[in-house]
């Protein structure tokens, strides 16, 4: 599973990164969350709001920080 969290230097963005990492640990999945700051990459997915999360090339989150439970569900769908 390829997981990318796109964000800038802001507290919301970091929160998504850590929540996603924790959600992965909850599920005992070995995948890693990649932190991306390059604006080109997020725009190429048609998204303009941070933080955003792309799992296996699919935009799962844009402009909000979902709860850990919701993130777990997203990862299980894409596992």
């Amino acid at each position: 599973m390829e997981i990318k969290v796109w964000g800038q230097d802001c507290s919301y963005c970091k929160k998504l990164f850590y929540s996603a990492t924790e959600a992965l640990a909850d599920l005992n999945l070995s995948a890693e969350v990649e932190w991306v700051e390059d604006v080109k990459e997020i725009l190429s997915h048609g998204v303009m709001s941070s933080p955003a999360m792309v799992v296996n090339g699919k935009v799962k989150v844009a402009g909000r920080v979902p709860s850990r439970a919701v993130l777990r569900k997203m990862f299980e769908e894409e596992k």
Partner: protein
Amino acid sequence: MLKALADLIVYRLFGVAADSRLGDSLDFFFYDTMKIFLLLLVIIFAVAIIRSFFPPERARKLLGNRREYVGNFLAALLGIVTPFCSCSAVPLFIGFLESGLPLGVTFSFLISSPTVNEVALVMLWGLFGWEIALIYVVTGVVLAFISGIVIGKLKLEHLVEEYVYQIRMGESEIHEPTWRERYEYARDYTKDIIKRVWLFVLVGIGLGAWIHGYVPVDLVVKYAGPGNPFAVLIAVLIAIPLYSNAAGTIPIVQALVEKGMPMGTSLAFMMAIVAISTPEMIILRKVIKPKMIAIFAGIISVSIIFIGYLFNFIFARMAFLIK
């Protein structure tokens, strides 16, 4: 009802005399605190629900590649309802330009978004009444509209970093949230905002209450009153480093208005606090050259100073006519 509750707490529970300075200040503090927190809960929740319908990706579609004027107006309105954190300023800026939107229209959005913010709205509504809150929103939209048009007319496209025009944006279908997701978003957002501002609100209302009870009218009128022609200018300069602290400063402004600070000076001060957003400008440096940031800040500052003098004039005339 809240007033009665505040009276009950201060005069009965604490046993402070009703006509004392302390009693006056405390009563003011409890009443305002209860009112503001209630309003924060209700209004921020409602605003967040409305915003869940307008993600930036939709704003981009709605704006299409509209030209000046209509575009500026629509962008200023969308700036209010689109959820936006200054950390999204870069992708938003590029995304808007990429869709063919003129630079000035993009700036109308970037100005209205922080200016007309929900915390300032709550504070104004709670402390000054809905009329002033409405004047504030309308003025914010006009400020964004006009500043955007001026930036458009100046033809500053060459001050945008070159790489911006080379980025191509991909297509995405906008995920339509369910009502449950909207509710969860609004609930988390409200919690988050209250967690961030509650201390400032308390300190601000506390200082306001202290001014209400202790600072003499003459002092405020002497320094910030209609007699000082530089008051608006100084108010805007003081406001610049106070960015994002609408929660803490508006109660103080309200107390100062009661003591004789003119409404135009106060509006200019509050608008400068939110509109001249230093973090947003630092982030925008990634997409525009420093010269353009200076022009951008200059246009907003001058517009706000103008708004301050204009409202001082209007309110003075209104007071004169009412008399």
